[in-house]
């Protein structure tokens, strides 16, 4: 027993040293980029999708010869959708892994707590799809986190774009809102309600449900049914979204259901089944975008992982590529990378053409997709600058 323990300690120490060794050796030849996502836990489907997509991007960059001849090395961490994990990860990426930039493939909760850490360390981060305003904004000092950039839409912007579509294209006069009670749900439904009311529609009911935990939406939907709205705007992630869509159909509700990027997952289509047909969402990815960039990504993703790519994956891929472009332009000094990111102009992204970043917020069209034949297809694009330009924070 004693001998075994001695051996175990020896092996452990040897292993620790070997990591040290290889880590040091590799640092000279590769460019390290940090990445975190909820790979396990309640958002595992999204976390895996983000990780898979970014790894596809790494492969593409390296196969094309890397960045100025140096290979990209992705340092992947699992935040399990926990803010406290994310804090530890951020510190590790800065102190131990010594990355040159970071990509967040995670939700608002974990991304938001890492933002001040990266900001303080002067480490550029591009967030794939986290929606909370405080990712790019320091609410205490009331100034932008100028090292943090976001490829996804602000909740308010996406909500406003959905409202624009509901009122202008669907001609909705009466609208009911059902939304999950968290940062994302509140922001997106507030953006939706403000725009819809501005355009002259009436909001019949506004309901919030507990997230996570709510599964039985019949009481909410029965109340909505009473008002017989033209459109139901539903904010939630794929599990809740699937339940809402299914239960609405069961209850015989005929109103058009309009969702957002939380619906944008193969899991939504799987759980909602045939009830998903005809559901419209505002999102970040247009599957019917004819640009070869998009079609090749969709094809490669399907070929590599055996399932369809979603918004989360495409957005994280974009975030990674935006960072890579900046490193190509500016080298590996974080401050220079940040400057290059700030100067991003008309970047041809997978999730649309990014005209620029305003206070770290992306400016690009919002995609409206509809479920047809069990797949998300293009329906419309919202590019009204009044809607898609993020409001200045102050």
């Amino acid at each position, binding site marked *: 027993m004693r001998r075994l323990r001695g051996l175990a300690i020896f092996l452990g120490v040897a292993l620790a040293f070997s990591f040290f060794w290889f880590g040091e050796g590799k640092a000279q030849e590769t460019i390290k980029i940090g990445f975190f996502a909820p790979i396990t836990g309640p958002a*595992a489907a999204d976390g895996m999708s983000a990780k898979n997509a970014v790894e596809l991007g790494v492969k593409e960059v390296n196969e094309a010869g890397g960045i100025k001849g140096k290979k990209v090395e992705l340092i992947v961490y699992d935040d399990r959708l926990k803010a406290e994990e994310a804090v530890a990860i951020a510190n590790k990426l800065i102190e131990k892994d010594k990355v040159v930039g970071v990509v967040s493939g995670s939700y608002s909760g974990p991304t938001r707590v890492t933002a001040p850490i990266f900001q303080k360390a002067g480490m550029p981060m591009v967030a794939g799809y986290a929606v909370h305003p405080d990712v790019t904004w320091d609410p205490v000092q009331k100034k932008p986190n100028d090292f943090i950039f976001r490829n996804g839409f602000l909740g308010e912007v996406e909500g406003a774009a959905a409202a624009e579509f509901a009122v202008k294209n669907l001609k909705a006069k009466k609208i009911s809102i059902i939304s999950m009670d968290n940062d994302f749900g509140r922001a997106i439904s507030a953006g939706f309600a403000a725009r819809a009311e501005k355009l002259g529609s009436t909001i019949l009911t506004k309901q919030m449900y507990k997230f996570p935990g709510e599964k*039985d939406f*019949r009481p909410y939907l029965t109340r909505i049914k009473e008002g017989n709205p033209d459109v139901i705007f539903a904010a939630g992630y794929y599990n809740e979204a699937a339940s809402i869509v299914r239960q609405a159909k*069961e209850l015989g509700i005929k109103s058009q259901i309009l969702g957002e990027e939380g619906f944008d997952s193969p899991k939504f289509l799987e759980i909602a089944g045939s009830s998903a047909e005809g559901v419209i969402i505002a999102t970040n990815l247009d599957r019917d975008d004819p640009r070869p960039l998009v079609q090749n990504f969709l094809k490669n993703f399907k070929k590599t992982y055996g399932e369809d790519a979603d918004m989360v994956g495409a957005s994280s891929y974009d975030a990674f590529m935006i960072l890579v472009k900046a490193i190509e332009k500016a080298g590996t000094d974080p401050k220079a990378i940040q400057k290059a990111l700030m100067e991003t102009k008309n970047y041809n992204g997978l999730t649309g053409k990014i005209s620029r970043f305003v206070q770290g917020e992306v400016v690009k069209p919002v995609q409206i997709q509809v479920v047809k034949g069990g797949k998300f297809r293009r329906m419309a694009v919202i590019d009204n600058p009044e809607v898609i330009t993020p409001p200045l924070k102050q």
Partner: protein
Amino acid sequence: MLWQQLANGIAIGSVYALISLGLTMVYGILKILHVAHAGIYALGAYIGLFSFRLVGDFWVSLFIGMAGSALTGYLVERFLYAPLLHLPRIAPLIVSIGLFTAMEEAFRIVAGPHTIAYNATVGLGDLSIGPFRLTETQILILLVTFGTLIFLWTFLTKSRTGLAMRACAQDAETTSSFGVNVKAIIAVNFLIGSAMAGAAGVLIGVYDNQVWPTMGSIPAYKALAIVVLGGLGNIPGTVLASIIVGLVETFFIGVLAIPFPRDAVAFVAMILVLMFRPYGLLGKA
């Protein structure tokens, strides 16, 4: 729309009843708080789901889910609770909590962290009267629950085993001295209670069309509150309390539109009952 909300409330309340009955029966006879009962409920959903994928028939999967849960409940009693009965009741409670946590982790490891769809067609069809609609899954829940309740009532009042079970709940020692095999009675108790929890798991699986590893965590404490509300060990009280909690939750959300957290209703009711009727809704002082 009041009728629709009534249907929504009774449906969810019926599922609460199926889960809580087993809990109250176990408490009645062993005085153990069987927290792992919610794990048995989730297990029933998983067994039902996977057997549905194998055989493709909902009713068969419901039966297998119930049978699997019943067997597991029996094994839990036989190998985890029975050896601890001579200890203070806190010991089996700790075991029960530990088992529940272990079960949730086991579901996650075996079936994955994702929510899985229970895409079964039951074959009953909806019932529509004007705007009112009793959905297929609501009809299913009502059928299974009321079928089970009628069975339970007949069993407890008409059969000798049922009579022995009620006697055991009042005084196990005296019952044993009349030649009743108390161990067998306890086993039957666990079999029936766990089968009902398994049925509830399968029903929620198709009602929400979702089965997920932590699906037992809310029922674990909500059923506890309902059982206290109904009067610990009191079977009709538990059924009444379940339906009331289901209805009140539904009406708070759907009619009064009070943004009151749904899962708190059972606890507020429990606190009120403990203050004014500590022996439960139908219990006697």
